């Protein structure tokens, strides 16, 4: 009797996953992101923002008259688990897959979607490879290329702050940092600015004192008037603390990874520090963005920590418009429409895609300035020339 019971139980358990989870009048959105492990800190808010968009959209009647259903799988900040999570959601019938905010961590899941002919989107990767080149023609990233951030800072600094002689300090640990500085290095000479010197460090380095020594010498002898710091926290905040502690008081430009004010305690009396963002968490000049932030705060109890929560909302707006135009959620048809979208008005500004470019490379960005723990916009900037492919894919060094 007991054996029979176990056999019955066993067969029920094994049969469960085979039940078709999908109803014809629903759209299934899969989220193969990190719900645990260190990536959770970066995936979490964009995932919540996506949930918020889905809720709002369902309240408006969904997409193509169908409600959107969410299925999730935890990648556990692990690349192998990422592939499993992607496969699982594809098998459960996802119509689109949202994957982790980093190329390395999101690609395993995105590749599963690509293999199954399903559209995938990185919720915040800034590597142009997170798309056609690295995954396939059905993959997108919601974010802008890191190169754009460096280019915006070089051009804005030259035009608005009169910064002419730059010094690059690159944290070589992440490809993102190198990409951001590649954009800066490309733009600065185009504006007749001069890259006087550069140096590198690693985020594990206990100190950057010898880099500071070399920089201090360049400031003294070669008239360096600003530093481009390409790094991500915690190393970035630590580097900035050490720079300021060593008496380096010239303006420091950086990339979007340092957005937010959660780290400013590291640098007492912070000022003359600038970076580009797509949206401001606090006091964004655009009423729509502020309303979105308020809705996020209402639903989750606190506003997003950084701007990385917003791009996925803009992408989902584009996807819904594309699906509506195509009259279907079939991935290939939707991608064909997305590929033609140019300056589509999203909540955070105009966004474009092209058949070979599934990342933003020329969207306007807000430059923010820090004064202590206050991060305020000092103006919007759009780069004046398109970033060439060798810079975007860092082909030459």
């Amino acid at each position, binding site marked *: 009797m007991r054996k029979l019971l176990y056999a019955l139980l066993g067969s029920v358990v094994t049969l469960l996953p085979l039940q078709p989870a999908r109803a014809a009048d629903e759209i299934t959105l899969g989220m193969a992101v990190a719900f645990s492990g260190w990536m959770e800190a970066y995936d979490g808010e964009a995932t919540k923002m996506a949930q918020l968009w889905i809720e709002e959209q369902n309240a408006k009647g969904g997409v193509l008259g169908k409600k959107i259903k969410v299925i999730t799988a935890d990648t556990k900040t692990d690349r192998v688990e990422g592939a499993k999570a992607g496969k699982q959601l594809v098998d459960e019938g996802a119509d689109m897959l949202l994957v982790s905010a980093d190329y390395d961590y999101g690609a395993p899941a995105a590749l599963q979607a690509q293999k199954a002919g399903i559209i995938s989107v990185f919720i915040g990767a800034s590597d142009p490879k997170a798309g056609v080149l690295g995954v396939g023609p059905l993959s997108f990233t919601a974010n802008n290329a890191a190169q754009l951030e460096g280019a915006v800072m070089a051009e804005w600094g030259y035009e608005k702050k009169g910064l002419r002689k730059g010094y690059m300090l690159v944290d070589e640990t992440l490809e993102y940092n190198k990409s951001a500085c590649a954009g800066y290095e490309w733009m600065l000479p185009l504006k007749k600015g001069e890259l006087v010197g550069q140096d590198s460090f690693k985020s594990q380095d206990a*100190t950057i004192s*010898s880099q500071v*020594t070399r920089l201090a010498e360049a400031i003294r002898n070669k008239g360096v008037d600003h530093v481009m710091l390409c790094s991500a*926290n915690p190393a970035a905040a630590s580097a900035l*603390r*050490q720079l300021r*502690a060593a008496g380096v008081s010239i303006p420091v430009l950086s990339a979007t990874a340092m957005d937010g004010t959660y780290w400013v*305690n*590291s640098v*007492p009396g912070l000022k003359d520090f600038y970076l580009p963002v797509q949206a401001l968490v606090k006091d964004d000049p655009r009423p729509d963005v502020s309303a979105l932030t308020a809705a996020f705060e209402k639903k989750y109890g606190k506003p997003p920590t950084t701007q990385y929560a917003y791009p996925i909302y803009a992408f989902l707006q584009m996807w819904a418009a594309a699906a509506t135009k195509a009259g279907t959620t079939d991935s290939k048809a939707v991608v064909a429409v997305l590929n033609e979208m140019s300056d589509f008005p999203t909540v955070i500004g105009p966004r474009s895609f092209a058949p070979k470019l599934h990342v933003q490379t020329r969207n306007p960005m807000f430059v923010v300035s820090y004064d202590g723990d206050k991060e305020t916009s000092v103006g919007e900037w759009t780069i004046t020339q398109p970033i060439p492919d060798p810079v975007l894919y860092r082909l030459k060094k």
Partner: protein
Amino acid sequence: MIAFLQNLIDAVSLGSIYALTALGIGLLFGILRLINFAHGDYITIGAYALIVPSADVTARLMIGELPLVVMTPLICLIVVVVALLSDVLVFRPLRRASSPTLMIASFAVSYIIQNGVMMFYGARPKAVDLWSGANTQILIGDLRVPMLQLIILVVTLVLMAALTLFLRKTPYGIQMRAAAEDFRMATYLGVRGNLVIGLAFAISGILAAAVSLLYTTQSGSLSHTMGLPLALFAFVAVVVGGMGSLVGAVVGGFAIGIIVTMLQAYLPPELRAFRDAFAFAFVILVLLVRPAGLVPSRTTFERV
């Protein structure tokens, strides 16, 4: 000349933080033959103990806000408790295990502490402003001598001297050295093994807490893996200096700090990314010439 002197100051200051970490690792190795990779995570614990335990993105100081004379012993106490707990829960049951087993166990302890920190504090790095008053410099002409580096150097030398005195002059220190020489013989002669080992863990905890405070003052940021690179370089320092010798650990720490800084300063830009590879090549060279390290310990000599 000024540039070289400046680099030397930078090198010595990096060396002193490695030396302080190496002292803690070297002490445990001397007594227990344990290469404790969790030592870096003791440092992490000490740094996180400064703030209110929460997963909020903005860190608020708690113990870190107390006056120096209260905060320092409190942080030491917390790290000592963690170090003793790791001994009682993990290393004591493995007393008779071989060195490799102990080392693997220390990896496990390290992994557990890191993930524990991530659970309670979240994975996003935290920012704290500890003693920023110490982040000033003394200018001697063009030479920049950071105040904090002087403090680190003095603390390292004082702690090393205190530890040496403790080991040479106090009864517990003598028991500890006896245990380091021949653990079984020492226990036959009445040395209480677990007490001596516990004491060694406690001291390594205090040393780790000192690194926590100094390092956090310098970097201003916390992350759940912050102690890892320190422990790694300190371990290399212990090997270079001579396994089991305290003076060796300190000498090794300074040597590694000087090598890394000088390579960073004088390698051409395109090779700087490979700085650590050059540094470790140098370590191999040192070991080829002096297999027992720069300052070999008499007790480990015959065993290896």
